[in-house]
């Protein structure tokens, strides 16, 4: 019997070859009437002054601006892994809203979790597991 093969699928390593930004869509919602949307809207408008620049810098993201009447303004990021993240930006100034938008853009969309190990890798450890049978023999 010659050698046979097992079926497998290669795994993606985003950023090793090509980098795909994980945020694929952002929705900016605001209310035309309420004061909490002031930073988003007319007078100190994020939508008017910052958003065009933001959209130009990030062409990978589909940007949607839609009214959300009688509710607080939000920014919603939709990610490639299927999840979405929402940040409420009520009462924020134009610069603070921009920071929130950048936060959503840079997020991977994964749930936040505490990282305790210094290295996360698909590869096996180079050194391998400790073996008592190799290396120099310890003399007592």
């Amino acid at each position: 019997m010659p050698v046979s093969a097992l079926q497998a699928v290669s795994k993606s390593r985003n950023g090793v070859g090509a980098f795909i930004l994980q945020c694929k869509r952002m929705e900016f919602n605001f209310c035309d009437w309420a004061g909490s949307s002031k930073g988003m809207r007319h007078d100190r408008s994020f939508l008017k002054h910052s958003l065009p620049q933001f959209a130009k810098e990030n062409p990978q993201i589909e940007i949607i601006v839609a009214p959300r009447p009688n509710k607080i303004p939000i920014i919603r990021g939709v990610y490639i892994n299927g999840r979405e993240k929402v940040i409420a930006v009520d009462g924020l100034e134009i610069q603070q809203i921009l920071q929130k938008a950048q936060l959503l853009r840079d997020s991977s969309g994964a749930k936040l979790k505490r990282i305790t190990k210094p290295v996360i890798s698909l590869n096996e450890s180079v050194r391998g597991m400790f073996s008592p049978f190799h290396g120099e023999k310890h003399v007592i």
Partner: protein
Amino acid sequence: MKRMRCAGLLRDQLLPIRHPSARMFPPHHIRRTPHFTATTTTTTTTNPRPLSTSTRNRNSATTTAPAPVETSNPNPPATTSPEPPQPSSSPPPPQTAPTTLPPCRSPTTSAKLAALHARLSLHPKFPVQTLARALIHPSADPNPLFNNRSLTTLGSALINYYATEWLLCTYPRLPAEVLRAALSAYVGAKALASMGREWGVESAFEPRADVDAGLLQFKRLPPGPEVEASGYKWWQEKGERWTNGVPEEEATASFVTSTFAGVYLHEGVGPVKQFFRQHVLSRKLDIDKLFNFVQPTRELSSLCSREGFEPPIARHISETGRRSIAPVFVVGVYSGLEKIGEGHGGSMNEARIRAAVNALKGWYLYSPAPQVDLPSKTDDDPHAPFRPAVIDVGEVIV
């Protein structure tokens, strides 16, 4: 008094509600924008080709894209000018056509499509019209001028060639079965579909005339028990079972393959090789995990006799806990004085078999230390310096 008030309140609340049979106005969704109703009637009743109604967008696509794939012309009188046909000069559209389409239907105005183009870092030479065409699976639009079938054919030839040559030059001694498994792990339908999902491609629920141009369009399989894989006969073309619909995986894979073809057509040979390296070869695959040895010790001894090495001998190197619940033995396989493999196991026999597997993998996974030149290096320049790959005699026949 209290009772009266309650009754009055109830009557007020009940006032606006009418019995459905006594409804004076049609339901609000019928009275919406005209394009909505036109589209629904079109796609549900009379139109045999769901996407064929978007003639306007197609015209703009054929004229603006310099692609060779876009040169064929479905409506010669209408496509001569880049502007949409004037109502006075051209005959009025048939009654079945939707009167207006949402702007996202056109590839040039679809935000999703532009975002996808930018996300893949495609060159501006790659027009969005080709990307839009790559998103239309033949099950959504059987007309070969508008679906991605030709692109898929070209793209799959390209990626299979590049993957094969890379694998053969990097691991010249790979057995044929393992080579095939590695190929499918890199450019098989599953790998391509997962790549498409990682590119953020979304699918339309149904192929329709007013679907966003940035959505993948295909006819879904009807719900029910899983269709057997061999839905078509060997003499049929793969496309002939598309009448039923296709799984999403297949449609996504066809989009990814067509994107490679688009890069090749619009940007050239060098960029498509780079695109392939970045998106396919950068993926992680442990080729040593693909081997499934049945009789490794026999295979190793026939390998040694074929290559003229001394017959392999397993030797005990060390052990611990022989009489405990968890013994460990370390066994090495030696050909003459040279150790060609080593393994550990809970018994001597297990360790010996592991050692043989280790030795065989060491042979089959040989890779020339400085990477040899791939044959496709001479695509651009036939006189480029070229270092040929090692050609192996082949796997061991046991």
